[in-house]
C-alpha cells in the first residue's frame, strides 16, 4: 500500500519513436507545471547534447520533477524519467523503465507504431508498467487517429479509445495527458522503513561534485552523511548531497524516501563505480538482495579509432577518457595498426553508439580521426581446442589453425508499410537473414521477423533498409546467440602491401562480391598519385579482385599572372591541406574516408 505521501507521487517515462514528439511533449509538460516558463525554455530541454538535439534522439536518460496542482486542490509530484530512444541503449531503457510505475506511449497520428516503440512497450509491460497511450500530431492533415487507435489495440492489446488526442507542438490537450497520468498510473509503494534499495538509472560526471547518480528509491530512505554501498561493485561512499532534479540542475533536500526520484552525490570519481542498474543500499543496514535486472555493459560493435595526425594520440586518449567519464558502456584499449599507427580499439553498444562517439570526438573535442570498419565479436575454435574471441580482423588466426568459427546473430524486427515488404525481404535475404515470420499490424503495415547475423546489420543495414522503404521501415534487434558460419578474412593490398586497417571478416559466399566492390570503391576514393597503384582484394594469398589507380602525369600550375604570388601560395596550401587528410600507407596516400568504405558498398 502507498502511504499518504506516496499517493501524491507519479513516476513515469515517455515511450515514443524518433520524431513522434517525445521531447516536445516533455517540454509542454514542463511548461504547464511551471517548471519552466516558455521564455526560459530552450526548445526540448531534456535533450542536452548537441547531437541529441540534431538527431532528435535521447542518448542519456534525464529526469525532472514537476509539481502539478489538480482541480481538487491537491498537489501532485510528477517525476518524468526521459529514456534513451534507441536499440543500442536497450539496457539503459530497461533500467529507466524499472524506475517507473507507468509510461506515456506517444504515437504519431500519421505514422502509427514503429518497431522501436513496440520493443519499448513490451519492455514496459514486462515491468508491469501502466501504459497511457497518447495520440500526437493530431492537427496534421495526414493524421488518422482512428486507425492508429485500432493499431494500438490490435498490436499491443491496449484499450486506446479514450487516449488523449493531442498536439504537443501546438499545445493542444496537454492537460488531459497529465490528468490521465494521475488517474491511471499507480502511485509508488515501498516500505520507507525497510533497508534502503535505490535503483541507479543513470549517472553523470560533474567536475565539481563528482559522479551524480540518478536514482529511484524503491525502499527505505537515505540522507546526507550516511555511508552508502553499491551492491554490485561493492564500493562504499559517504553521501555529500542529495535531492530532486530539475532541468539542467538540482534542488538539494535532506532526504530521499521510498517512491521518490532524485540524485545522490557521494564523491564518486568514476562512473564505472556507479553503474546503471546497480542498487544503492546503506552500509550500516544493507538490504539482503539487490534489485533485479543488473547487467554489465557488453559492447557488441568494435572499431579502431586513430588520430588523423599521429601526434594527436595523447589528445585522443584524453578525449576518450573524458567521454568515458559519462559513458560507462564505452570501452577502449590501445592498439597498433601498421597502416594507421597508434590508436584505440573501441567497443560500443551498437552502431549508433559508435557513430555518436565518433561525432563527439570530432565536434566536441575537435579531433580529426580515422575510424576503421566496424566489427563484431567472432568466436573461433582453433584446431588445438582453444576458443578465442575476435574483435579485430587483423588478429584472425591463420585459416589452417581454425577448426570452426561462430558469429553473433540477432533477432531483428522490422516494421514497414506493406508496399516495401518485397524489397525489404530481398534485402534481408541478401544479408543472410533467416525468415521467422510476418504479422500484419493493420491492412497496410506488417512486422517482419528475421534471424540475422549481426555482422550484416553492422554493414550499413539500417541505411539500406531506410533507402528501400523511403525511410518508413523501422528496425529493432536483440542479440540471440552465436551460430557457426563459414567466414573468411578479406584483405586489401595497396601496391602489393596488405593494409591491416582495411581487412574485414565476411561470409565466404559474399567475399567475391564484397571484395570486388571494395576494390572498385577504393579506386574511386584513392586519388591518383605519382605512380600506378594496384588495389587487390585477397583471401589469404588468393587474389579475388583487382583495380588500378593510374598514375597522374601532370600536376603543375603553369601561369604566373602579373606577380600574383599570393594566389599560387593559396592553391598550394590547399593542395597541402588535402594531403594532410591522407594517411601514408607504405608509399600510398590513402584518404581517411577509405577506411570506412567497406560500409558504403551498396550491396
Amino acid at each position: 500500500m502507498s502511504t499518504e505521501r506516496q499517493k501524491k507521487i507519479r513516476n513515469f517515462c515517455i515511450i515514443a519513436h524518433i520524431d513522434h514528439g517525445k521531447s516536445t511533449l516533455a517540454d509542454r509538460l514542463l511548461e504547464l507545471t511551471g517548471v519552466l516558463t516558455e521564455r526560459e525554455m530552450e526548445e526540448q530541454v531534456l535533450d542536452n547534447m548537441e547531437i541529441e538535439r540534431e538527431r532528435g534522439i535521447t542518448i542519456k536518460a534525464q529526469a525532472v520533477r514537476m509539481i502539478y496542482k489538480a482541480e481538487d486542490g491537491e498537489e501532485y509530484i510528477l517525476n518524468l524519467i526521459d529514456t534513451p530512444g534507441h536499440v543500442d541503449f536497450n539496457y539503459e531503457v530497461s533500467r529507466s523503465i524499472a524506475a517507473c510505475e507507468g509510461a506515456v506511449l506517444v504515437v504519431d497520428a500519421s505514422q502509427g507504431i514503429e518497431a522501436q516503440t513496440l520493443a519499448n512497450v513490451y519492455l514496459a509491460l514486462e515491468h508491469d508498467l501502466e501504459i497511457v497511450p497518447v495520440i500526437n500530431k493530431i492537427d496534421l492533415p495526414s493524421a488518422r487517429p482512428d486507425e492508429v487507435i485500432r493499431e494500438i489495440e490490435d498490436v499491443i492489446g491496449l484499450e486506446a479509445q479514450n487516449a488523449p488526442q493531442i498536439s504537443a507542438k501546438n499545445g493542444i490537450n496537454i492537460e488531459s495527458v497529465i490528468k490521465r497520468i494521475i488517474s491511471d498510473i499507480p502511485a509508488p509503494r515501498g516500505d520507507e522503513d525497510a533497508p534502503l534499495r535505490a535503483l541507479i538509472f543513470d549517472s553523470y560526471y560533474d567536475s565539481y561534485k563528482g559522479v551524480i547518480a540518478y536514482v529511484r528509491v524503491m525502499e527505505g530512505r537515505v540522507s546526507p552523511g550516511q555511508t552508502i554501498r553499491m551492491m554490485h561493485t561493492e564500493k562504499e561512499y559517504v553521501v555529500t548531497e542529495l535531492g530532486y532534479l530539475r532541468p539542467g540542475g538540482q534542488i538539494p533536500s535532506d532526504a530521499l524516501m521510498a517512491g521518490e526520484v532524485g540524485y545522490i552525490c557521494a564523491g564518486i570519481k568514476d562512473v564505472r563505480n556507479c553503474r546503471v542498474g546497480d542498487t544503492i543500499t546503506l552500509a550500516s543496514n544493507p538490504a539482503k538482495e539487490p534489485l533485479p535486472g543488473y547487467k554489465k555493459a557488453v559492447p557488441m560493435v568494435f572499431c579502431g579509432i586513430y588520430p588523423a595526425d599521429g601526434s594527436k594520440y595523447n589528445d585522443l586518449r584524453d578525449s576518450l577518457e573524458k567521454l568515458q567519464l559519462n559513458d560507462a558502456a564505452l570501452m577502449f584499449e590501445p592498439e597498433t595498426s601498421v597502416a594507421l599507427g597508434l590508436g584505440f580499439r573501441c567497443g560500443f553498444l551498437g552502431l549508433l553508439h559508435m557513430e555518436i562517439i565518433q561525432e563527439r570526438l570530432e565536434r566536441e573535442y575537435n579531433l580529426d580521426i580515422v575510424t576503421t570498419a566496424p566489427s563484431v565479436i567472432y568466436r573461433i575454435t582453433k584446431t588445438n581446442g582453444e576458443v578465442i574471441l575476435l574483435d579485430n580482423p587483423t588478429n584472425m588466426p591463420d585459416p589452417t589453425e581454425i577448426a570452426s568459427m561462430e558469429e553473433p546473430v540477432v533477432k531483428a524486427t522490422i516494421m514497414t508499410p506493406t508496399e516495401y515488404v518485397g524489397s525489404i525481404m530481398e534485402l534481408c535475404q541478401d544479408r543472410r537473414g533467416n525468415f521467422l515470420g510476418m504479422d500484419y499490424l493493420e491492412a497496410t503495415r506488417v512486422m517482419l521477423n528475421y534471424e540475422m547475423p549481426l555482422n550484416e546489420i553492422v554493414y550499413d543495414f539500417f541505411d539500406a533498409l531506410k533507402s528501400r522503404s523511403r525511410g518508413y521501415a523501422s528496425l529493432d534487434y536483440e542479440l540471440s546467440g552465436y551460430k557457426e558460419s563459414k567466414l573468411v578474412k578479406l584483405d586489401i593490398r595497396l601496391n602489393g602491401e596488405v593494409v591491416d586497417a582495411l581487412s574485414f571478416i565476411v561470409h565466404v559466399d559474399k567475399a567475391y562480391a564484397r571484395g570486388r566492390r571494395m576494390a572498385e570503391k577504393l579506386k574511386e576514393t584513392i586519388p591518383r598519385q605519382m605512380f600506378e597503384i594496384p588495389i587487390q582484394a585477397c583471401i589469404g594469398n588468393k587474389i579475388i579482385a583487382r583495380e588500378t589507380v593510374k598514375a597522374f602525369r601532370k600536376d603543375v600550375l603553369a601561369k604566373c599572372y602579373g606577380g600574383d604570388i599570393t594566389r599560387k601560395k593559396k592553391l598550394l596550401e590547399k593542395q597541402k591541406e588535402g594531403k594532410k587528410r591522407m594517411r601514408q600507407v607504405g608509399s600510398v596516400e590513402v584518404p581517411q574516408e577509405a577506411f570506412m568504405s567497406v560500409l558504403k558498398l551498396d550491396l
Partner: protein
Amino acid sequence: MTGTQDIGIYIHIPFCVRKCRYCDFASWSGMESIWEPYIRAVIRELELKSETAAGRRVMSLFIGGGTPSLLPYAFILSIMDAVRRHYRLLPDAEITIEANPGTLDEDKVKAYLDAGINRLSIGLQAYQDRLLKFLGRVHTARQFDEAVSMAQRHGFSNINADIIFGIPHQTMDDWLETLSRVLSHRIPHVSCYSLTIEEDTPFGRMKREGKWQDPDEELERSMYHTAMEMLGEAGLEQYELSNAAKPHHRCRHNMNYWQRGEYLGFGAAAHSFHNCQRSANTSDIRLYMEGMARGNPVLDECYPVPDEEGLSESMILGLRLTEGVDLDELSTVYHTDVRLKYREKLEKLAERKLVELEGSVVRLTKRGMDLANQVFVEFI
C-alpha cells in the same frame, strides 16, 4: 631583403575587346568611357607611390592586361611619361607591352618604339582558327602573322608569343603547326601554357556542369615535352616551366618574380612586393579609381612576409627556373642553413626523381617539371 636592388614595375590595363573563355583575370570588354579616367588614376598612382620607390632603379617595366594594345597609343605614351617622370627607369630597362593580334596597327607600333618600349608580347594561343574561336579569341591566325611581321618591320626584335596547349580538340598536329608557325618568325621568346580551367570562367562553368572533357593527359604532356624540345632545337632554351628564350632574351620582368625580386604594381588588381610586404590593389575598377581620386589606394590584400615564409617563396618560385635554386645563396640571404633545413625533404624528392641536387644547387628533373606542385607543396 630591402634597400638597394633594382625593381620592376607592372602596369595593369584591364580592358579587352572580349574576354576569352578561359580567362579569370581582371579584364573587361566595353567600358571605353572609363579608359581615360582609368589611365588618369594609374598616372595618379604612379605619382603617389613614387616616394615608395625611394630612388630605386627600375630595370623592367611591363604593361600588361587585358589588352594594352587595345587602347589609343596616346594613353600608353602618357603612362610612359609618368613612369619616366617619377621613377629612375634605367636606360637599358626591359620595357614590354602586351598586344593582341587585330588590335595592333603601324601607328601604335611606331609610337611604342618612340616611347622606348622595346619588347612586345603577343597573344597567339593557337594557330588554328577553329581553336581560336573555341577559346573565345577575337583574332585569326593570319592576323598574328601580320602583327609580328609588322612589328619586326618597324624595329621590334624582342618579341614573345604566348601559346596554349592542352585545349580540347587540339591535336598534336595542330600543336606542331602552331609551334612551327611561331618559330618561322624567328622571334626570341615563346611562352607555352598548359590550359588551366579556372572556376570563374565560361570553361569553369562547363566543367562544373559536366560539359567539359579534359584532354588526354598523355597527349597534353607530350605536347609540352615536344614544344620544349622543338624550341630548344630552334635555339630557344627552356629557362622556366613555361618559357623558352634565345640567349640574353629571357624575360627580365618575369625573372624578377621568380627570383623573388621586388616590384610595384599599378592599376586595378595589380600586385606589389616591396619591403617584405605583398599587396594587391582592389580588382574593382571603380573602387580603384575612387581610391586614387582620394589619394588613398584601396587594397584587396596586404600582408607582411616574414623570413620563414620568404624562404618558402624563394623555393617555390626559384624551382620554376631550370637553373634551379642555390641553397647556399639562400642560406646567406635568410641567415639559416637551408641545406640542413630541407635535407630530408630534398632527399625524399630526389629519391622520387622529382629534383636533382648538384653541389648546392637543386633543380627540378624533367619528371619534376610535370609534377612541380608535388615538389612545391613540400616547401609551403
